[in-house]
């Protein structure tokens, strides 16, 4: 027997929007679902995941507790070859999942050529390219050596790096000093000015900063990021507040520890002139907080999202060091004059670690100054952040969105929710020219491709199949 309540129906509309518009015009109550075709997921996996919900929930609760308990601080600086675990003279670290020289994109090739010139391993770009392809040089992902690198993410043995410690768990992470904008190594440029700047960063910037940090003892990065979010940063595409806050801490220490006033001024000028200086601290800070949440059996939380300009890679808490990859997408960005999507390299860089840590695109509602990247209004930015709560297991207990009444940022990308909601993470990003040496051609947001998440979901499901109690 059909039971039908009196009164005009209240309608949920899935499909043609004009139907909802007609209903609205009649004063009916109607909600339209922004529907899109579901992902094609094998039923077997879905059932395995369904069966294991309690286990996943418990594992994720534990993982999120660990991430939220993290306390990343800047403890000092050092030379990559001395401090990064496993670093050796023939090793070059790069952004994203593992990749061979042959498969690397233009900007990564350019950055490696630049790094070999900088290291003095070659005298000309041609020589460097030959060496790079010769097999003498080993390549490995930054993430496999405790590092994160923006864009091409190249770290060679002589480069100075920041050392970040998660004081709650005792783990360390590393990142180079940010070079600024324009012709820079991370975008694949290797001209003389690039190498000269890198040398200056090694011989002037690094010693000055290193002494100042030693003088300060530690710098609480978590505190700086939390404040920066209240000041309009999301610490991925906007780092103006974070950089400013850092300078307030560093400046007195530099003046106290540096003997050369010219050098002190040059260092402060350099940082002041580079809004993104703080990015190379927000990234390793996120990694430091995420790394202890690795290897929790059953946890569906992503601990790494990283791109090498060819592939997009994801690592899952439950799945150890396994990479789940798929082709990286070309960002739908705002392009600098004279450039278009046709010039753009597919998405590149380890900087998506900020989104993995609940910042960047996930916190874009905190950064009204850059809402043009997501459609133009503060409301658009809010929608982006709000939608990310739907794919996260929880919220950050340290980082907040003022515009959401200081709600914690969405934290703990849950691959099960990504698949079930058919919603992929949004990542703020800079866009590199596809050819080496050209540099940045735009900026915007990019949606992570689904393929790595589908593969991670499958692997997680199968891990429950193999698991016999």
């Amino acid at each position: 027997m059909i039971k039908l309540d009196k009164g005009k129906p209240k309608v949920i509309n899935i499909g043609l929007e004009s139907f909802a518009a007609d209903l609205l015009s009649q004063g009916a109550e109607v909600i339209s679902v922004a529907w899109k075709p579901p992902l094609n997921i094998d039923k077997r996996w879905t059932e395995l995941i369904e069966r294991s919900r309690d286990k996943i929930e418990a594992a994720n609760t534990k993982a999120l507790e660990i991430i939220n308990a993290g306390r990343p601080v800047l403890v000092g600086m050092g030379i990559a070859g001395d401090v990064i675990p496993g670093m050796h003279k023939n090793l070059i670290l790069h952004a994203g999942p593992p990749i061979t020289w042959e498969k690397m994109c233009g900007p990564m090739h350019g950055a490696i050529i630049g790094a070999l010139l900088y290291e003095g391993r070659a005298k000309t770009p041609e020589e460097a390219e030959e060496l790079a392809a010769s097999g003498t040089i080993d390549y490995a992902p930054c993430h496999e050596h405790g590092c994160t690198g923006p864009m091409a993410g190249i770290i060679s043995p002589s480069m100075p790096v920041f050392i970040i410690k998660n004081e709650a768990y005792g783990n360390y992470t590393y990142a180079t000093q940010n070079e600024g904008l324009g012709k820079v190594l991370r975008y694949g440029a290797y001209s003389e000015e690039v190498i000269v700047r890198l040398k200056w960063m090694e011989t002037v910037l690094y010693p000055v900063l290193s002494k100042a940090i030693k003088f300060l003892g530690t710098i609480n990065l978590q505190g700086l990021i939390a404040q920066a979010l209240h000041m309009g940063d999301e610490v991925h595409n906007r780092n103006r507040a974070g950089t400013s806050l850092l300078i307030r801490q560093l400046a007195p220490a530099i003046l106290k520890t540096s003997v050369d006033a010219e050098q002190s001024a040059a260092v402060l000028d350099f940082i002041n002139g580079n809004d993104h200086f703080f990015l190379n601290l927000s990234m390793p800070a996120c990694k430091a907080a995420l790394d202890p949440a690795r290897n929790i059996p059953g946890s569906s939380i992503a601990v790494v999202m990283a791109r090498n300009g060819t592939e997009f890679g994801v690592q899952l808490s439950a799945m150890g060091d396994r990479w789940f990859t798929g082709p990286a997408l070309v960002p739908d960005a705002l392009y600098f004059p004279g450039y278009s999507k046709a010039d753009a390299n597919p998405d590149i860089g380890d900087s998506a670690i900020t989104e993995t840590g609940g910042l960047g695109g996930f916190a874009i509602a905190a950064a009204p100054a850059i809402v043009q990247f997501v459609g133009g209004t503060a409301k658009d930015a809010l929608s982006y952040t709000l939608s990310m709560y739907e794919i996260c297991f929880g919220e950050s207990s340290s980082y907040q969105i003022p515009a959401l009444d200081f709600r914690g940022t969405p934290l703990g990308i849950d691959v099960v929710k990504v698949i079930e909601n058919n919603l992929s993470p949004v990542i703020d990003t800079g866009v590199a020219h596809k050819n080496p040496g050209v540099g940045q051609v735009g900026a915007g947001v990019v949606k992570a491709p689904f393929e790595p998440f589908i593969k991670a979901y499958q692997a997680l499901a199968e891990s429950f199949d193999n698991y016999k109690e």
Partner: protein
Amino acid sequence: MNTLAKTISGKYLDSVKLMLISKELRSLKGVEDAVAITATKENKEILAATGMLVPDAEAASETEIVIVIKAADEETAKAAMQKATSLVENPPAPVSGIISSEVRNLAKAIEILPEANLCLISVAGKYAAAEAEKALDKGLHVMLFSDNVSLEDELALKHKALKKGLLMMGPDCGTAIINGLPLAFANNVPTGNIGIVSASGTGLQDITCGIANRGCGITQAFGTGGRDGKKEIGGIMLKACLQYLMDDTDTEVIVLMGKTPAPEVLNELMRLIKQTHKPVIVNFLKQIELPELPNLQSSVSLAETAELACQACKKPYTEIDSPVYKIPTLPQNRKYIRGLYSGGTLCQEAILIYKRLFGAEPFSNVGAKLLAEGWHTQEDSYIDMGSDEFTVGRPHPMIDYSLRLKKLSEEAADKQVGVILLDVVLGYGAHPDPASELVPVLQKFPGEICIVCHVLGTDADPQDRQKQIAALRECGVYAFTSHANAVDFSLKTLMKNRENV
């Protein structure tokens, strides 16, 4: 190539805004390249790299905005520069709506509207059943507009709905009016005491409008989807809705319509009808043998079905507006009729009436005498342009008139065609102003063609029915508000022409 440059000082715009402005400028016709940018050192390098660093730009200071435009001719460049200047001086307001909604799934929608009790689904067929199942699981009545859903899925959905006491209207259900709310393709019909259950969408629309236009009203208009009466589905929803109307105290008269159901379904429907004292009018779109029941009447005409229902209300009702036109005389050579329909049931009814008159069916894309190709009419032909062959990859002809207008022009150009018969469907879901599409085309037709049109709708419909009719009559169309009358007139015109031979 014309290059123009300009410097604007004392104005600050962030780089993203400037990028958006540059993007807009580049999209202007005739503009080869364009940029609005703050003249910093780095930006000048970018300009140099792209060949845009003209002397004016080079001379600009760090805080100034430079605009450089390259265009095919001077006029274009000047116009673009003017636009650029105004955009920089008065930057565009942010565009909203990139993200249409935070509601990505049914669960979220229910969270926001917990009192929701009906789900209207019109996603592509292969996903539709899954969505409908979710909605039923959440306790929502379902109207499934989508087609291309398998019979197995339809059966499973209807079983599930029945178990939960829910409506499962469709798949392929285009029309319903529930508690006075028109859904999808439906008309504004007053509330009254006639309850309808129909397996035909346009049939339901035509009958509800016929009732409204006679001054009566309805309780419910349930759609079941065209296959409900098939043996495989067993008339699950036809029976359930009929039962509902029998039990419903507001419903005093019942109309049951659709393609003739399978014999076993028909038997069960008749058994149900036997259990009620309420008058029931059935229309199975063709003459069939029905048991003699005191409360049962049948008709094969949509207009008559509405008329009978109104009569059964035992209240005074108004006669439907029936214009008296003089039958036109057509040139001898214009001896054929072409029906170009958007409503499937109307097309079938027209074919049926034709067959009753001439003893044989006309050519059509839906009847027994199939056109070799739906598009290529010959002799007397009726086309249902709402059938799949015409709607793949384009909107339904009730919404998008372009294909029908094209076909109309083709038919009018055929010197053997004397009568063109068409329907214009009004109401929600349909084109907002069909006359505005039809009139400019029909005006160009030679006066010797007779255009007959059935206007389906009510005066309360958003299109303003009287205005639509007046506009059509204005350009010589023989417009009717009863399909039977329209068909009758078209055939009389055809007969007159043939008798003259």
